[in-house]
């Protein structure tokens, strides 16, 4: 990497800590972001000349704070600005001071910044867009591309989200243990939303949206660094790593869906899987399984199977049972039914999903699973009806095409 690429990477990785500390100083998101921007400009001038600072985030916080204060002064009194060099040559003593000021707040600062983005009044899409803009520092153009909307539409979405937050009360006091854990849960949920925004992409959209998965993993790791002993955060990061590890194998060259059992497992990313498994290993020691950890454990059983036949379906069935207790939902039961069909056959699975019909009458995947079970039982006419319903409910062309391939197979059999 050249100088600029290195500086760019350093600025990106310093961003969450720097912006969140500046937010604490200025108590206003716009001012904090502006101060950070100004500090970045100074960094681009100073770092190639003086070499990178030992702690880029501390440097940016100090400089950003000074510039912000100078801006305020200038507006107030029109005083001349100090020259750049007095800002960019921060003495070690000053950096140490900044460290000490910030180290104690560091975790709660970043958590606050992330938490602001999950304000309950913001719809999910705005939460994600805001987090990507404010915490990750993606440009509006980058975010717009990932969401497949125009730049001006995304600009509006983010402006609206910020306006709402400006009106809301931002919690600046240091949170107590219950508040902290509540925030952590909300933030984990938001990060998983970012991930799914990328993961649900299909075919041609994939190259545009996959960066969302990578960004979510980065945010997840950041959160885990701050809260090292939270098994649910380990579970969240593991879940994202194990799912993302399969991304190269999930679609064929035409963008059609390849089912888990048909995927070329040699194309799964071994490094991501290894890290995911290591995190699950660590999390299990806590003996407090939560929904993310259980889902990660299910993904891990798939990842461990070199061939689809090696999959430990009875264990997956058990884990889905645990998940049903932790997070009762017809969708979880539907997923469990797939495992049950492998262990006890399609009849048992069908009996399990029949009661879900009312809840899931608008859900593509329900009719896909139902059709597949009926097909396995040789009830082809009923299977066709279910598949037709699935196609009508498909969220995108790839899903519809996938079901159509089932119908084609039915056709050949008849």
């Amino acid at each position, binding site marked *: 990497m050249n100088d600029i690429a*290195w500086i760019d990477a350093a600025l990106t990785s310093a961003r969450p800590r720097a912006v969140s500390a500046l937010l604490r100083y200025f108590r206003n998101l716009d001012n904090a972001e502006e101060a950070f921007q100004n500090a970045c400009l100074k960094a681009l001038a100073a770092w190639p000349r003086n070499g990178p600072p030992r702690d880029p985030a501390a440097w940016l916080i100090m400089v950003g704070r000074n510039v912000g204060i100078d801006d305020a002064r200038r507006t107030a009194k029109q005083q001349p600005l100090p020259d750049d060099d007095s800002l960019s040559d921060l003495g070690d003593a000053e950096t140490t001071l900044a460290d000490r000021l910030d180290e104690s707040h560091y975790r709660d600062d970043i958590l606050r910044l992330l938490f602001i983005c999950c304000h309950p009044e913001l719809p999910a899409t705005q939460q994600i867009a805001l987090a990507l803009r404010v915490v990750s520092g993606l440009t509006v153009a980058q975010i717009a591309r990932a969401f497949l909307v125009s730049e001006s539409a995304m600009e509006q979405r983010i402006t609206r989200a910020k306006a709402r937050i400006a009106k809301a009360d931002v919690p600046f006091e240091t949170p107590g243990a219950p508040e902290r854990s509540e925030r952590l849960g909300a933030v984990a949920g938001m990060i998983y939303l970012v991930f799914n925004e990328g993961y649900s992409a299909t075919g041609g959209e994939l190259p545009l949206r996959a960066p969302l998965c990578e960004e979510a993993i980065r945010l997840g790791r950041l959160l885990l660094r701050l809260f090292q002993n939270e098994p649910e955060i380990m579970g969240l990061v593991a879940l994202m790593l194990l799912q993302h590890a399969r991304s190269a194998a999930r679609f064929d060259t035409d963008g059609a869906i390849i089912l888990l059992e048909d995927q070329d497992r040699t194309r799964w990313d071994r490094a991501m899987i*290894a890290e995911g498994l290591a995190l699950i290993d660590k999390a299990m020691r806590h003996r407090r399984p939560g929904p993310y950890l259980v889902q990660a454990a299910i993904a891990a059983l798939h990842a461990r199977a070199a061939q689809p036949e090696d999959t430990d379906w009875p264990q997956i069935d058990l884990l889905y049972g645990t998940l049903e207790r932790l997070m009762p939902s017809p969708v979880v039961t539907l997923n469990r039914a797939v495992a049950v069909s492998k262990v006890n056959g399609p009849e048992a699975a069908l009996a399990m999903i029949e009661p879900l019909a009312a809840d899931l009458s608008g859900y593509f995947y329900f009719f896909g699973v139902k059709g597949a079970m009926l097909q396995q039982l040789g009830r082809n006419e009923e299977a066709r009806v279910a598949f037709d319903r699935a196609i009508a409910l498909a969220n995108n062309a790839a899903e519809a095409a996938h079901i159509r391939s089932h119908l084609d197979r039915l056709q050949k059999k008849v």
Partner: protein
Amino acid sequence: MLYAVLCYNSEDSVFSWSKQEEEAVMGKLIAAQEKMAKAGRLGPVARLMPTTAATTLRKDREPAVVIDGPFAETKEQLLGFYVVDCENLEEALEFARDLGHANPGGSYEIRPLLQFRPGTLAR
């Protein structure tokens, strides 16, 4: 003399690399090791998972305590190491400089080995 070259860098930064950046840096690092590897003077090379995957056993108390995370929270983290056979410190520094050109940022700690057993790992 055997030296360990311990690689310290900001993991926030390293684990934010895009796939292309990652491949570019790794390619350059391999090239930088080639001379020593060909001379049969490059020992084990390891890259570590992020510190979030680490677990620490504090054995300064009884019973020992298991803690999630790395031994110490530091600005730069231990992310990997090389073992090389060098004539002297100057040569070890030269090797580290070559690596540094391939992968700027962070630091290398060059530490002579007191004892080395290559082990029997077969892969």
